[in-house]
């Protein structure tokens, strides 16, 4: 009688089932299929097979495309006798005539076995993971539903995509860019005129753990000899030479017909004869020319030849961009005198799995965020924070210009994004090399600049950069960045750490560089007057830096004396990277943003991010000959004018609050203190009093940790003139004399408000 079930050829299992979980599972299977007994058969030395029949719900209008799925489907469930339930059961069809060629989601046949059902995406380890939360009844339900879906034409769960073959039992991997080879097939770019194959060059990248061939290039005819010479040259190098590459040749073959093949071949050829005459024939591929190329004298192929076969499918292959499925074979050539100019029909073939090289687009897709922009982003400072943020951005497809003049030293490794392989390399160059390692097939993703970033701050920077991110933790660079004329349209942000590294601060400038990073800092410090958390931080900074008269807010961690752990840096880097990415997709904001990310250790390690928004400032130049620029926080100028109008026809005035920077020649006016009650004014004079003023200023200075304080005076000329009066000049002279006695003298800043103008004077 003709065999109809595969299990008929299996021998009964006569051993003892010592695995209690397996015994219990078999009892559960009996209950599921409602039979008193199940037969146990030998599948292999370590596996048993249990044949049974599953009921399948079939569609009422008949099976789609007439696929031969039946109401009762025999299957074989295979268990590892010792590894179960850690190793999930596998399920195979028991029918020898099962319509496997029209069913995706089936594994290839192996060792003459029937094909197995692919129940879980992701291979066998994924199946084991899946089964850790499933029972045998769930597996059988899934198989039954698989068969139902096959009958309904719904097995391809990927919508309009074509499900590729489920390959297992690979021998190694082959790495190439799908799109690169698909383009060759679509354009039929053959090595020879009217040919149907291309010649490929691979590099062997074997490790102790894996065997890989990586595509180096598709070799055109005019480079064939040169590349053969190159291969030979590499081959002559000593095995100990670190620059030595092991190169080999392979082939890509396709069908000249555009007829798509939608059938699945779940039994791949194992020898040349089956490959050429059956497999290629079924897929409308003529392998004759390929065979001639393989056997051509001086063709230069080695024993093992990777052959990639392109099968044209009716729909875009799931996970890829084209309707071409590649199957990757490896042919083992043997010299056989019986076949001097042809391939030995028995030459064995194995197959490899395809690995897509990492590309920026792929990285962006995996990251779920695309930072691929036309222009580069300048990262100034590739220290602990900058390197980590740079790597985050690179992994979203960013192209970076990284500027850093420092080397990577051993102690940097504790907190840096790079690893020990780059010790004593310039950090900028090392970052560029790391990007090449990530995306080996790409053109430059990171342009290194192993020098001070200041040099880059030129007007023509805008031609290559769309964004500057400053992670230098350098006050010097900040001053340069503030004053730099970098042209239109460049977005600027600055990230740094403070509060012994527990606070990460990201300043994002508004559109057109207003508010600028120094405006944001000044306004943030002013905000401490009403924000106790910001105030507490600035007071702590003040205490830490109490030896200087004006504290520096912010730390660098380039020193090995800085105590700060890598995880805290990573938290800040992750937050800042996320914020930079979000900002990159938003339209330029009129407002500037300050993000404060606070890491705290108590009661447990945690972080929280707050955002402060600041409007553009009003910018004025000093009226008298000086380089000073005055930047008023939003609303202050309007307030001054309102106070003038209110007091008119008398003069009025008061004290200006803020800070000044001699390096950038900038005064930030962040607030006002009204005229003290003992002030006196008439139509042509204003005498600013002093009652309570010192206490008010003291409060502000203390609350802001010394960052904000008295910065100047203002008064009104409600009837003009639009200039300093003689009295004003006398006061300025007196103040200047007093200030010069200070360690850090304040500039004398006098502001005159008239109905027509706001006139700053700085001496």
């Amino acid at each position, binding site marked *: 009688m003709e065999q109809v079930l595969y299990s008929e050829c299996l021998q009964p299992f006569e051993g003892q089932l010592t695995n209690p979980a397996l015994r219990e599972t078999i009892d559960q299977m009996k209950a599921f299929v409602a039979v008193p007994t199940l037969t146990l058969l030998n599948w292999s030395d370590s596996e048993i097979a249990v044949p049974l029949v599953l009921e399948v719900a079939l569609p*009422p209008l*008949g099976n789609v495309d007439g696929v031969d799925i039946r109401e009762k489907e025999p299957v074989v469930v295979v268990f590892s006798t010792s590894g179960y339930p850690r190793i999930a059961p596998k399920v195979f069809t028991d029918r020898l005539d099962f319509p496997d060629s029209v069913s995706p989601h089936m594994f290839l046949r192996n060792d003459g076995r029937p094909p197995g059902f692919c129940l879980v995406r992701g291979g066998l380890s994924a199946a084991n993971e899946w089964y850790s*939360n499933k029972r045998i009844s769930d597996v059988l339900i899934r198989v039954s539903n698989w068969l139902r879906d096959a009958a309904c034409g719904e097995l391809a769960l990927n919508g309009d995509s074509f499900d590729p073959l489920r390959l297992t039992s690979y021998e190694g991997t082959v790495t190439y860019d799908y799109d690169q080879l698909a383009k060759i097939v679509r354009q039929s770019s053959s090595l020879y005129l009217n040919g149907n194959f291309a010649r490929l060059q691979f590099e062997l990248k074997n490790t102790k753990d894996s065997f890989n061939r990586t595509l180096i290039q598709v070799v055109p005819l005019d480079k064939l000899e040169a590349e053969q010479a190159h291969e030979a040259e590499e081959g002559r190098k000593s095995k100990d030479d670190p620059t030595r590459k092991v190169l080999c040749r392979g082939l890509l073959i396709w069908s000249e017909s555009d007829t798509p093949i939608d059938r699945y071949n779940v039994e791949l050829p194992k020898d040349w004869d089956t490959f050429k005459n059956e497999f290629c024939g079924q897929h409308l591929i003529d392998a004759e020319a390929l065979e001639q190329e393989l056997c051509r004298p001086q063709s230069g192929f080695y024993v093992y030849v990777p052959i990639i076969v392109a099968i044209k499918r009716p729909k875009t292959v799931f996970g890829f961009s084209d309707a071409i499925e590649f199957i990757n074979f490896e042919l083992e050539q043997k010299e056989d005198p019986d076949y001097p100019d042809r391939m030995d029909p028995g030459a064995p073939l194995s197959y490899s799995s395809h690995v897509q090289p990492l590309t920026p687009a792929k990285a962006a897709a995996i990251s779920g965020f695309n930072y691929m922009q036309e222009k580069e982003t300048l990262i100034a400072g590739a220290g602990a924070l900058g390197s980590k943020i740079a790597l985050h951005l690179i992994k979203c497809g960013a192209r970076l210009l990284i500027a850093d003049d420092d080397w990577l030293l051993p102690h940097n490794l504790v907190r840096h994004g790079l690893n020990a392989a780059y010790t004593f390399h310039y950090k900028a160059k090392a970052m560029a090399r790391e990007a090449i390692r990530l995306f080996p097939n790409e053109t430059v993703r990171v342009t290194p600049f192993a020098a001070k970033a200041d040099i880059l701050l030129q007007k023509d920077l805008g031609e290559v950069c769309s964004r500057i991110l400053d992670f230098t933790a350098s006050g010097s660079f900040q001053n340069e960045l503030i004053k730099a004329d970098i042209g239109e349209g460049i977005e600027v942000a600055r990230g740094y750490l403070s509060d012994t590294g527990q606070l990460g601060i990201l300043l994002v400038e508004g559109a057109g560089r207003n508010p600028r990073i120094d405006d944001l800092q000044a306004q943030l410090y002013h905000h401490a007057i009403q924000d106790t958390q910001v105030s507490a931080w600035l007071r702590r900074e003040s205490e830490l830096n109490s030896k200087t008269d004006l504290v520096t807010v912010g730390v660098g961690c380039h020193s090995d004396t800085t105590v700060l752990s890598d995880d805290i840096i990573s938290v800040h880097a992750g937050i800042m990277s996320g914020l930079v990415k979000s900002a990159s997709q938003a339209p330029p904001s009129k407002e500037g943003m300050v993000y404060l990310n606070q890491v705290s250790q108590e009661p447990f390690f945690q972080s929280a991010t707050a955002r402060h928004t600041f409007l553009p400032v009003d910018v004025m130049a000093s009226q008298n000959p000086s380089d000073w620029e005055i930047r008023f926080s939003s609303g202050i100028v309007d307030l001054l004018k309102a106070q003038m109008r209110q007091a008119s026809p008398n003069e009025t005035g008061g004290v200006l609050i803020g800070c000044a920077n001699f390096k950038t020649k900038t005064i930030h006016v962040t607030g006002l203190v009204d005229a003290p009650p003992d002030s006196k004014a008439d139509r042509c004079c204003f005498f600013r009093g002093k009652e309570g003023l010192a206490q008010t200023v003291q409060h502000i200075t203390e609350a802001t940790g010394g960052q904000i304080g008295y910065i100047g005076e203002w008064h009104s000329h409600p009837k003009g003139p639009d200039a300093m009066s003689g009295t004003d000049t006398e006061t300025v002279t007196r103040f200047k004399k007093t200030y010069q006695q200070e360690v850090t003298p304040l500039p004398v800043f006098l502001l005159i408000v008239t109905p027509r103008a706001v006139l700053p004077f700085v001496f």
Partner: protein
Amino acid sequence: MNQVTHFPVGNGDTSLIQTTDSAYTTNIIVDCNIRNESLGSKDPAMYDVKAHLLRSLNRKTVNGITNVPYADVFILTHGDEDHVRGFEQHFYQGDPRLYSQRNKDAGEIINETMWFSPMVMGKANNEDERVFNKEARRRINLHRLNSPDRDLPGNRIAIIGYDGNEKLDGLRHYVPGQIVSRFNNRELSTFSIFIHSPYQQGLTEDEVDKNGVSIVFQARYKINPFSSTFSALFMFAGDANHEAIAEILDKTIRHGNATRHQALAWDVLVAPHHCSWTFFNFCEQEDHPIPEKTSIAFLRQRRTENAHVIASCKPISPYDKNPPHYAAKVEYVKVVGEKNFFNLATAIMRGQTPQPIIYQVTAGGPMKPKAPEGTAKVAGAAGLSTINSIPGYGAGPVQ
């Protein structure tokens, strides 16, 4: 999601038609018979239809109130109580701009579009029908007055059938023989409804028989817009009697719609009038025991031998007379076979509670949902029957 759910609501009808097009799922409720005892599974013998609807319907923000449940279309086949029970309590009536948090807290569903027959202009026989008619007339007025609000979600209407009532002139009507593919202002490419009834003649008779003028329609699914065949055909016949069915059969065939549009074919038929004898002949059944040929011919329009008949009624016993009528069941079974006849009250049970029958649309026709997989990890849910029962324990004698 392309599926049709028939709920077990005793002698009555409640169905939910769902169809997904361009990533939006249109929900169409056909009739409602939501009994108070079913709410919160107070009576374990009743399925909680309201909870199911709230789980299934789309939600949106209305008047600043988030997650408001709404149906795209509510079709009332006719106003008998077993088709409209619970309408007042569970569906919002009135200006949709006045929907408030209080309405949401009360679980009121907004019907963005209402489909009804001209019967809403007549006299109501029960309180829910009166409320439905009032809401329908509120919307009709907006449309008659050409109010700028008339097309707001919650004010939309379609009138099924034409009775010559001049008050409804100029309003959107769908009449027998018409195929509708626009639902709640959305044109669908893979779903349509063929209108079979009511005919004008029935609506304008001196004494209108409500069951005779039920809205009857065929819900038609395609697997893709370009398909030349339907992947599923559901016939909703309301409480249509054998005379209405005979007229549908006659006119559909006569106008060529049976062949041109497959308008009579069905894969699933909801047995009219809760499996009563009226589908087959006049009552009493003893006086008219032979089914009309037209009714049998209507049943024979089933597309395949796997077509299903759903009896939306209480459990059918051999002693039952209208509705359900055991003799009617026998006639259905003669045509479709025992395995293809399902009484919603008994077909799928979970404990004492009857479960809805759900059909998912596949390229091979409407199918019951796949068997659900379980997991290896489990925790008892609130609906666990043992939680709702009182177990007995005690220090009695050991047996």
